[in-house]
């Protein structure tokens, strides 16, 4: 078991390393560099030389990669070009904002998806299932930017209950942000919940028709006891990985929703820095997003190992 965790951790590190190389080379092979991107039309002669000198762009690529990754390892992601501020400072605020949005959406969306998934599976083809499933399909198929826009129109403009877009600055306190996140959370949760609900539903239906559930019925296990002891632990196992992917997606910044609501999160920062051609920030963001995906999936894998006895022993025997 311990070895197994070590192995997974090792694999995670290798992934991050490979991703960092790919990001770096990706930015490297793009025509031009950070300075030409930033200086635009003035990128010539002395000005360009000074800029390159400042950023150390004259040294060989491998050297720059090593110093970049070495610094990144110690948590220093360098300086942004446009704001000339440390990237850490810019990103940390955005990470906090995205976290607030993500955690709220997770806290509401995931339990809701699981509960609704169970309900639809147990009452399969009956009224609750038909009602919830139809609604789920609708919210899955309508793109976020449409549902978000409709939400703004109805709640913010017609009813005037909540602010339509976020107008507070990105460094405002959590309390200031809170009323602003309600609409984005609803928009995100709709899509997320619908997706997960359908996965949970089909998993549970599959388990319900398994031989061991039939056996449990034939042993005389009462219905709800059967559901909680024999069905749910097995039916929800595959959901762990789906949840992990969803969380990673949320933490990585929900680009479309953030842009529609003008929410100062990671997703909007990605868009902003790309349009500002702020390559150091883009590079740093890509690395952080990779870290989030790998980390969350690692946790999910370990969690599955803990919960699923079958996987545990099989892996050890190998």
């Amino acid at each position, binding site marked *: 078991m311990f070895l197994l965790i070590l192995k997974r951790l090792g694999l995670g590190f290798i992934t991050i390393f490979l991703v960092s190389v790919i990001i770096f080379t990706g930015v490297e092979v793009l025509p031009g560099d950070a300075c030409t991107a930033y200086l635009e039309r003035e990128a010539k002669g002395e000005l360009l030389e000074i800029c390159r000198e400042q950023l150390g762009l004259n040294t060989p690529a491998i050297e720059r990669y090593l110093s970049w990754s070495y610094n990144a390892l110690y948590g220093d992601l360098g300086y942004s070009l446009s704001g000339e501020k440390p990237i850490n400072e810019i990103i940390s605020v955005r990470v906090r904002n995205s976290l607030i949005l993500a955690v709220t959406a997770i806290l509401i969306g995931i339990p809701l998806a699981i509960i609704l998934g169970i309900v639809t599976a147990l009452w399969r083809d009956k009224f609750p299932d038909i009602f919830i499933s139809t609604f789920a399909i609708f919210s899955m198929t309508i793109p976020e930017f449409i549902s978000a826009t409709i939400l703004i129109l109805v709640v913010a403009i017609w009813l005037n209950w909540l602010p339509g877009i976020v107008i507070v600055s990105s460094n405002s306190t959590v309390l200031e942000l809170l009323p602003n996140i309600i609409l984005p959370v609803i928009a995100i949760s709709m899509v997320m919940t619908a997706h997960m609900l359908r996965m949970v539903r089909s998993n549970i239906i599959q388990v319900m028709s398994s031989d061991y559930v*039939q056996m449990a*019925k*034939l*042993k*005389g*296990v009462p*219905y709800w006891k059967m559901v909680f*002891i024999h069905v749910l632990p097995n039916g929800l196992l595959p959901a762990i990985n789906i949840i992990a992917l969803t969380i990673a997606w949320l933490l990585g910044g929900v680009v479309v929703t953030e842009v529609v609501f003008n929410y100062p999160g990671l997703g909007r920062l990605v868009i902003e820095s790309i349009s500002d051609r702020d390559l150091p920030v883009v590079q740093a963001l890509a690395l952080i997003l990779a870290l989030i995906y790998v980390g969350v999936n690692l946790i999910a894998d370990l969690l599955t190992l803990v919960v699923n006895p*079958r996987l545990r*022993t099989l892996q050890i025997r190998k």
Partner: protein
Amino acid sequence: MSDKIQTIENLSIGFKSQNGREVSILKDISTHINKGETVGIVGESGSGKSTLALAMMGYTKQGLYTISGQCLFKSNNLLNMTDRDLEKIRGKEIAMIPQNAGQSLTPNLKIGYQIEETLKLHSTINTNDRQLKITELLHKVRLPSPNIIAQRYPHELSGGQQQRVAIAMALAGSPELLLLDEPTTGLDVTTQAHVLELLNEIAKDTDTSMVYVSHDLGAIAQVSDRVIVMYAGEIVLDGDVRDVLSVPIHPYAHGLLNSIPKLSLPGLPEAMPGTPPQLEKNIKGCSFFERCDFATDKCKNSKPELFIPMNKKMKVRCFWHNKLSEKQRKPKYDSNSAHKTKNLDEVLKLDKISITYSKQSIIDQLLNRFSEKNITVKDIEIEINKGETIALVGESGSGKSTILKSIAGLLSTKNGSINFKKTISLSSDVRNRTNSQLRAIQLIFQNPDESLNPSHTVEEILSQPLKLYFQLSGDKLKENIIDLLKKVRLTENYLYRFPRQLSGGEKQRIAVARAFAAKPDIILCDEVTSALDVSVQAAVLKLLQDLKNDMGTTYIFVSHDLAVVRAISDKVAVLYQGRLCEFGPSSEVYKFPSHPYTEVLLGAVLEPNPDLKPVLTAEDRVEESPPEIGCSFQSRCPRVLGEKCFTETPPWQFSKKGNAIRCHIKIENLFKQQTSKN
């Protein structure tokens, strides 16, 4: 007569078909189970036997419903009880032992918990007593170290152990009626014989009534007092086990019994023509009409009732039962059709091949060294002549399929070589074989459902080998396909059907046709009949035999069923843990002297005769891996000589009639020991 524990009255169960019609799976079933009696329900797939067993617990599968009739358990109709009331009966008064124990145990719960659950639900004993009871139950089903087993998860046990756990779980509620749905199907022969012996003991000790559902007349014969034969949702024969099996007075039961290959009779069994009628079909007369030799117009137009004929002790649903009771069972075994073409050209030689599944250490790989540890299959040496059928026999884990895969080039050998027609050494990797080498060796798999592409029509399936190996196209291609269909006794009508529109036997025929399309020298058959019903099995075996006689093909036949092997093969190789134990002509392998393992296997075979009990000599145990030194069978052998067996690899000994036995015991002594005992 003793009291009835369950009475079934005019029971019909069915479903609504897509066009809204009511289709019945069980048609007007009336019967009863007496206290302390074991009733065997036998029938082929689709006969409704499992549906009947489940109805006896008041359970109908999703989509099915009761059309009419009732199932009375102690004068309560189970079929209109509330769930609350049923929960009290299920597991306590009526318990079920399922077909596939591995899938019927909840994967995330420990064995101990699953048994305790039944105890908690149906008894009032406290925690301590419950733990004792669990140990007692696991001990009763003869599982080694019950306390450790209770802490295990289902997937950590072998198939036989899982089945025993399922039995222990069913016994936990001390039920009065035990329903067994194919409890030994899928188990190895020796394990199956042991499980049946255990069930017999339980029946004797506890006076439990049992209903034993199976397609295997051999198993039914061993456990039942009474047999019910079902066909197309109806009871066609119902009587004492000895009466039914010695003089089956219904033509279906008669045919079923004759289609079983038997150890005592070499040669192919008689096949029953036709297939059971479609469920949706409305039958006015007798449901067996289409397949019956005795059928007349009367049978076509009016339905025979289930009745007890004069001078008979059993119920039968046939107008012409007298014809059958007069005509005693005379199995028409064509014993001469096997063992025909003798052509001594060697087509394939396995020269000391060894195969391993375990990964080799990096160091060994770098030095190109071959580690002796954990070899799955070791030193197999077999020569196969043209036109012969060689069978590889053994229990699961004996390496028989592994050898087949390496002949096909799907699994690379670590040592040794595979020589084709003396001169050509076949690469152990299929990618390095030439087109004509590939054509020469074809495979037929166990499960035609999985080996035929579901989105291809029969025509497309059969055209592929023809296009690939012979570059046929157009009319020529079509001609060949129709010709192939004729060879496997199917008509042109099948050309545009998809696999799902075929019955199990028809699918396997297509698989056979596909193999023959390549005009191969050798066909590898991997358990080709084990997924089929017995009557279909007999027909497929007959087909394989006929094709071989026509085309001079060589078969390498892998099976766990010794009777099937006896019926079809010329030579038999017995394998244990990837090591060859015995090899020789099949007529000799089935006679003494035998390797002790062959003896154990033969002893465990179930014959459809209640008076022929299996002989259980070796312990039923699953070994994780073969022993590193000594004889491969050392730890289960009932005839261990001494130290030698554990340290030295036994030598090959040859009997006068040409079979080779790998054992430390002198062949004369083996013969003496084996014949004196019986």
